[in-house]
């Protein structure tokens, strides 16, 4: 099947210009290396950095496909906010220890994962690359580029979001507010919890279950858990 896929793909390369082909190749490589880095990096911080790398690759691919605005937003939101938040939580909780990647306590989990995801990939490639799955149906949002009235992608996207998708837009705004409130509630500790902190720790010591304890950085594990300012950040 691989041969069939390749035979299908090779003629397609010829059409692309050198600049675009190079850009795509470099960006794709960045994406894949970064993604592989995320799942193979033992240290969560390294994984986060690899994630940033992937995000950059995706952003470049967005630019390649005339989605300038989304590329910028991708960097701002993902790299600038989400991954920073990841890093912040990693540092804040002090879970930046090496993960054990050799053994998996769940028997059969790993081979099962590889086989299943391999099947998923194969099916998707069959569906998306080698078949014509395009039904010809279009969304209600309108065309992205109208050669009669050239507009920047920001204008087109903005019009789409603020007219066709106005209601979803407002809903997502509400969703964000809800998420913020939820995060504040989650991250705050109640007075009782704050007082019962020591008891919690004592209980932790004799906690019988928990197959893998890697990454659980207690206070004695070197780097102290810094828990001072979470309210300000997550709120």
């Amino acid at each position: 099947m691989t041969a069939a896929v390749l035979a299908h793909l090779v003629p397609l390369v010829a059409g692309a210009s050198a600049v675009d082909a190079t850009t795509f190749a470099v960006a794709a490589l960045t994406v894949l290396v970064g993604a592989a880095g995320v799942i193979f990096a033992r240290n969560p911080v390294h994984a986060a950095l690899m994630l940033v790398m992937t995000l950059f690759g995706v952003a470049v691919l967005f630019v390649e496909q005339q989605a300038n605005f989304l590329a910028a937003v991708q960097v701002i939101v993902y790299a600038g906010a989400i991954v920073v938040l990841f890093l912040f939580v990693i540092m804040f909780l002090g879970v930046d220890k090496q993960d054990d990647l050799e053994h998996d306590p769940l028997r059969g989990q790993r081979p099962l994962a590889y086989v299943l995801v391999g099947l998923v990939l194969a099916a998707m490639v069959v569906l998306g690359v080698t078949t014509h799955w395009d039904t010809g149906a279009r969304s209600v949002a309108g065309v992205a580029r109208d050669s009669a009235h050239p507009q920047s992608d920001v204008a087109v996207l903005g019009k789409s979001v603020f007219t066709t998708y106005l209601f979803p837009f407002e809903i997502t705004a509400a969703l964000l507010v809800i998420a913020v409130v939820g995060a504040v509630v989650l991250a705050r500790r109640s007075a009782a919890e704050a007082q019962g902190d020591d008891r919690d720790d004592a209980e932790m010591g004799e906690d019988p279950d928990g197959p893998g304890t890697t990454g659980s950085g207690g206070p004695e594990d070197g780097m102290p858990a810094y828990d001072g300012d979470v309210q300000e950040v997550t709120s």
Partner: protein
Amino acid sequence: MSVDPKFYLALSFALFSIGAVGLLVRRNVLVMFMCVELMLNAANLAFVTFARKLNDVGGQSMVFFVLVVAAAEVVVGLGIVVAIFRRRRGATADDFHLMKG
């Protein structure tokens, strides 16, 4: 002439699969989160690709919403991680199996 959309789709599939593998294999909750982000990015890439291929801005709009929802998801998810960590001093997903039947 830019690169054929099928390459983008193939890349998107690969990225999605890597994310899925990571989600199944990794035990660190935060890394699992990152793998979810990888999968979301794969979906976004596919959306943008289709938006270009079909000359339809709907795909780009969808990416916009996916970004917003991803941000909300991460905020709440990390809040939950922090809250759990307070109780159980660990960020390993396998530690949290109190809900077993």
